[in-house]
Every structure is written in C-alpha cells, then in structure tokens.
C-alpha cells in the first residue's frame, strides 16, 4: 500500500523527494553506464522493471481468505542489486500511479524512499548477511524478502507519523499508531512474500540456473570431466 496522492503535506512531499533523489540518480547512473557498455541491457532491464510491476499484481494467498500483493522489491534487489532497483522501483511506482491510481505523483518521492530505496537495501543486506553466515540461497531469499517487505511498511508508517504527529503524545504516539495499523498487520503478508520468494527461487534454480549463475546468485555447476576423444 503506497501513500496516496495529496496525503502528505507539501513540505514532507518535497523533503522525501530530496531524500530519495540521490539513490534514484545513483541508480540512473548505474543504468546509463550499463546501457552504454552493453546496449542490449536496455531490454533486460526493461524486462526486470516489467516483472517488478507484474509481481506486485500477483495476489498473495492468505489464511484469512483475503489476499494482498507482494512488494516484489526484495526479489528484485536480490536478482538485480539495490542501485538498479532504486531506479526500476521508482519507474514502477510512476507506472502504478498513472496506470493503477496506486500511490501518487507528489508522494512519489516518499513512496520511492520506502519502496525503492529502504526495502531493496534492507532486503539485499539481509540476503547477503544470511549467505555470509552460511545460509543457503533459499534461507537468504526468505529472510531478504520478509524484511524488505516489512522495512517498506515500517518506513511508510514512520513517514506518516512524521507528517501527522499525535496531538498529545507527539511523534512516538503517532509512530505507535501508524506502525500498529500499517506494519503489524503486514507481518503475515511479509512471511507470505518470503514463502513466495522461496518457491520462486526454487523453480528458478531448476528452470533458469544459467541466468542465476550469470547474475552471481549461484556458483557455476562443475563441468563433468570430458571423457573420450574431443
């Protein structure tokens, strides 16, 4: 769930845009460099962006019978790295605002900061940490995707708390309110997104192993020793 158009006061909308800008510009520079060196990357990066948009349109099954949508940025950050996701996530947010009326233009900066900067970096950091501690690909993906989802909604809650401090208890009270409404309720859905990530990467390790090796997620499978004449 993104912050809707017009919901944030003008000062906050500008402030979050300024905060997200360096990350998005850094991502744009990474993309420009990649495309200059390999013009064919335009299509692969476009495919990555389209996948992130479509992933957020997949309904996540839930125990209560209702359904929600994964953020998809955790999977994107693990596959394509956070700087690229800062740009692709912002492009996806722009498309969601203009094609689905989800989010907004003045709140694009705030949503980009939560969805395209904090979520991917937390998800990727958790994934790398899990791998560094000896966890395999799938535990890393699970932890990364759960925390990327949660970090996005915790950030959104804190952005709202900053914009609307509580009348009596100030920022702390407002943070408790918004975290209770937008982040606590997200925990089962974040776990659901982690499970979806495990299932996704389990299928990918079988069906798209060369791509995962090229992206550096799996080490190349040992080549069987050639027997007989070449």
């Amino acid at each position, binding site marked *: 769930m993104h912050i*809707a158009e017009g919901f944030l006061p003008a000062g906050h909308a500008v402030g979050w845009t300024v905060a997200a800008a360096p990350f998005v510009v850094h991502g744009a520079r990474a993309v420009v460099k990649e495309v200059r060196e390999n013009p064919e990357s335009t299509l692969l990066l476009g495919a990555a*962006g389209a996948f992130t948009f479509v992933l957020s349109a997949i309904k996540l099954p839930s125990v209560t019978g209702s359904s929600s949508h994964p953020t998809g940025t955790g*999977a994107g950050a693990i596959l394509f790295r956070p700087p690229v996701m800062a740009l692709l996530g912002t492009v996806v947010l722009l498309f969601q605002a203009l*094609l689905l009326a989800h989010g907004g233009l003045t709140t694009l900066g705030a949503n980009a900061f939560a969805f395209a900067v904090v979520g991917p970096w937390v998800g990727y950091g958790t994934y790398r940490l899990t791998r560094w501690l000896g966890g395999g690909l799938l535990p890393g993906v699970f932890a990364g995707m759960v925390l990327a989802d949660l970090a996005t909604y915790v950030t959104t809650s804190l952005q709202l708390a900053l914009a609307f401090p509580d009348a009596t208890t100030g920022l702390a009270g407002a943070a408790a309110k918004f975290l209770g409404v937008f982040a606590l309720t997200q925990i089962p859905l974040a776990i659901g997104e982690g499970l*979806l990530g495990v299932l996704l990467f389990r299928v990918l390790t079988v069906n798209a192993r060369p791509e995962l090796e090229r992206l550096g997620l799996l080490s190349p499978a040992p080549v069987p020793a050639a027997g007989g004449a070449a």
Partner: protein
Amino acid sequence: MTGLAVDDAAWSSAWRRRSPGDKLLLCGGLVGCALVLPAWPGSVLVGLVAVGLALGPARVPARTFGRAVRLPLAFVTVGALTAVVSVSGDGLGWAPDAASRAASLLGHSVAGGAAVLLLATTTPMSDLLPALRRLRVPAAVVEVASVVYRLLFVLLQSLRTIREAQTARMGHSSLRRSYRSTGVLAAAVLTRSWDRARRMQEGLAGRGMETGLRVLPEVLPSSRAFLATSVTGLAGIVAASVLVP
C-alpha cells in the same frame, strides 16, 4: 484493449491528440493547487474541475474514472482515521479538531488523485515518456521505462493465462497448492520476461541496433487557447481560495 482500464481510457480519450506538455501544465497545476491550497474551497474546486474536464471535454468513461478515484480511498480513509485518533495514557480518543483534519486530508487526497487521473486517463504513457527527455532524464533511462511499459502488458496477459490454467487444474484449491502455484506463476513470468527480452534483443541486433531504441516521435502541437484557458482557470482557483475565507 490493453487490459488496464486507465490505459484504455487514455488511448480512446478525446484529448489523446492534445499536446502532452499542455496536459502536463494543466494537470500539474491542478495537482499543485490540491496540495498547497486549503481544502475549502481549493481542493473542492480542483476536484470539481478535474472530474468535470475528464467526464466532459475529455470524454473519459465515468465508470473507469469513478472506479480509479475510489481505489486509493481505502488507504486515505484508514490513514486519515489513524491520523486523527489521539493516543494518551487514558487510551484512545479523538484529536480536538479530528473532523476538520480528517475532512481536509480526504479533500486534498481525492482532489489530487482526480487531477492525476485526469492526466492518466487522457495521456498514454508512451506520450508522457518522451516528455521526460525534456526534463533532462537520461535517454537510457527513458528507453528502459519505455521497454517496461511495452512489456508489462505482455507479462500481465501471461500472468492471467497461466493463472487461469492453474485454476482449471485445481492449482488454487487449497492454501498449500495456491502458494505452490503462485511461486511457479512468478517464476514462469520472470523466465518469460527474460525470454522475451532476449528474443527482442536478437531481433533488434539483426536489424543493426547499436546506439539505442530510436523511434520517430509523434508530433502533437500545443494549443495556445488550451494553455490560456488552463492558466486562467488555475489562477481562478487560486484567487477563489485566497478570497473565500
């Protein structure tokens, strides 16, 4: 039909042939007014103008516009209620000016949302993306965004087809099966997107693509009358908001 109602409306809108720059000025102005002017009468006027223009001269289907305006209301309602509930040692209560603050938040959001939708339902993304070049967004970034726009409809169609096939094969008959099917669905869409990108790249390489995806831009001339009316209307909204207490 592309499968996204707002995009379909944009392609068939009566304002489709208007200059994207003209529409950006009008809608950007309305979004700005909804953001900075007081909810009464600023947001009310912005909302009325945006809805009136969309359903009137731009001939956007009322059902499409109404449904799209309603979509963010769940967030706005929950967010506004949370903002005006006060937490203290005695428990929960309403903030002193709860009703006016909630109404103001609702007004700003609905009016701003309607102004964004006026742009979205009259201007396809393929018209808006070239305008980003004039805002000095690098060509490579605009190209990637254009590929995202063109690929997402193909992938959304794949998503629907695969999900339908999974449902027909009892793939969503229980929670466990549904999770497994959803994982397979996401993986299938990702590998298809890679496959599509690879095939398009091979096709373009065969046609000599070396420096990027260059296409002839469609020229949609700006209208002085439209610009003058937009500026006058926006000035009228600002003046009314300043003069009306």
